């Protein structure tokens, strides 16, 4: 079952999108594989089995998922449905027990650990529910660390970190430690960090779960800008129904099956 055809909560919006995307495909007269290339994320028949004691547990059951480039895809579902496991697999952090995953036209399920690291480094930005910022580093330094990991150092790193934090509206909080920032500000630092290297894919795990309503809205707007202005594909695992308004597609996962 492909999630790309799951209906979006806002049908008017969905209609507009279909009207926009369909002619493009038609005019291009793309073949199957060319169309495949236009997908940012393609998962086929993905299964994941965890072994707990002697009993194997099938957490994901034959997942198929297509996410076009430049769109916001929500992945929703109850707790324990396998959302985070699927996100980890789609991000190349976990290897599925069966099936294949293509990101940006490259099959990551065939990559070595090192190749996967390099792929993530160059193509994926991460946003986490718990922010995962280094508590001893300032906002600026947290972004600089991501730049350092990507090989950008010195004044260039500082300048780029400055620029990224300005983009998320934290010009006046750059030298604050995470403990001195609000939840929304922390998440914006995490978003700035995720933008390091201008990745084509953003993977977000419950980005608004730890935020109040106001901060949550700000982050939602930021994520929409990321996708629309930056042409990035954003995959969001969430329980937050407010995000449905900004999503292009929504997939529901229940008991390891996409519906």
């Amino acid at each position, binding site marked *: 079952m492909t999630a790309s055809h799951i209906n979006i909560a806002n049908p008017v919006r969905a209609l507009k999108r279909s009207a926009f995307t369909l002619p493009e495909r038609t005019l291009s007269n793309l073949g199957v594989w060319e169309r495949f290339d236009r997908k940012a994320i393609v998962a086929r028949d993905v299964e994941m089995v965890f072994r707990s004691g002697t009993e194997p547990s099938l957490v994901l059951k034959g997942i198929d998922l297509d996410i076009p480039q430049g769109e916001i895809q929500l992945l929703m579902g109850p707790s324990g449905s396998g959302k*985070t*496991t699927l*996100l*980890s697999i789609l*991000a190349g*952090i*976990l290897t599925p027990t069966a099936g294949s995953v293509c990101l940006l036209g490259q099959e990551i399920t065939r990559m070595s650990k*090192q190749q996967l*690291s*390099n*792929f*993530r*480094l*160059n193509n*994926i930005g*991460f946003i*986490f*529910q*718990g922010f*995962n*910022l*280094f*508590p*001893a*580093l*300032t906002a*600026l*330094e947290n972004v*600089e*660390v*991501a730049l*350092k*990991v*990507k090989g950008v*150092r*010195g004044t260039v*790193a*500082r300048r780029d970190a400055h620029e990224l934090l300005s983009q998320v509206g934290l010009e006046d909080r750059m030298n604050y430690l995470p403990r001195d920032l609000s939840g929304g500000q922390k998440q914006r630092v995490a978003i700035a960090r995720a933008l390091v290297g201008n990745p084509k894919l953003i993977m977000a*795990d*419950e980005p608004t*779960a*730890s935020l109040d309503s106001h901060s949550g809205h700000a982050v939602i707007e930021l994520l929409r800008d990321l996708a629309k202005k930056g042409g990035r594909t954003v995959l969001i*695992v969430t329980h937050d129904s407010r995000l449905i308004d900004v999503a292009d597609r929504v997939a529901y996962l229940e008991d390891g099956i996409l519906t």
Partner: protein
Amino acid sequence: MASIARKNLFEDIPRFIVAQAGIMFAVSLVTIQLGILDGFSRSTTRLIEQSDADLWVSSQEMLHLEVTLPIPLERLLQTRQVNGVERAEALISRSGVWLDSAGHIVPVKVWGFNPGGRLFGNWRMSQGSLSSLQEPYTFITDRSNLGALDLKQVSDVGKIVPLQAKLVGLSEDTQSMASSTSLFASLENANAFGGSGSGNLNCTIQAGQVECLSPLTRSTSPSSSEPPPPPRNLSLEDSISYVLVQAKPDQDLSELKKRLESALPNTRVHTKAEMVEITHTYWRKRTGVGFILGLGATVGVIVGMVVVSQILYSSVSDHIKEFGTLKAMGASDWVVYGVITEQALWMAVLGYVPSMALCLGLGAWTVATKGIVILITPGTAIAILGVTVIMCVGSALFAIQKVTHVDPAIVFKA
């Protein structure tokens, strides 16, 4: 560029201080143990190193500097006849008993040499001069021995049982930590002090006071007003401990050594370096001293490793999600290892510097008050820095192990 390692380290100051205290303790323990071992070894051979003798002639049975059998004085005269010898002087080593004014006895080692000679006694004098040793029944000793001998100053008098002996000078850096209190006297005085040693004494305790009689004196009681006769000159019948030899300029020492050994029956000839090595080896390997001090240093390293391991492991555990995030972002394991290793290096350096300062201060205090040298040479200091770095980086392996096996999926757990 932000240093995660440094910032993580200083994030929790109280924990950092506790960690550094543990490292300081470990480094200080290692430094002090090694410093005492080196100071001890050095002190056992200071008299050899301070001498200008190229060769030392001893009995064949010599064990180390302070334990040897006597050789006849005749060997001194024979040595002077050997081709290639510039100068030869006798050295006597005798045991004795010091009796202080309070009636306490102290074992002493009396070294007799020629105060007008050139081959022995080339140490620094803090008070008095060697020429004063020409007077009868005089001696000098290391400044650090004043307390042990219950003496206050130069010109104080005590007894090298049963003879009265007058302190005429104080030397510096001449006391071996391994031996009895060393006293330095002329050959004649040392022969008298040693010849009247406790083995030939008839000592009794009367009213809490030790009273001894020897062949040289009729009585040691304060009421005896008759001064002992001046010590006699050494005769050929007397024995000495060593003949110190200075070779003529450009003389091949190994050739001279062979000539001396063939000319002097029942003796062995050692170069200065060999004498040092024999004495060092004896104290370090044939006694438990080297083992015990080495064990202390090893314990210090182990304690340091345990402390650093715990701190680093705990720090990594606290930040496991951040490290997982780095890995999820695509950072190689080496980036994460680099952070942990840098943290370990900071801990090593910040633990080492104050420890070394502490040990240098402690060493200055012990040498000034106890005469115990905690020897910290530049080489030792560098070696201990190396040990500290290895200790801290080695301790990081446990933390690295933890990070290596961290599941990157941990980053998605709230």
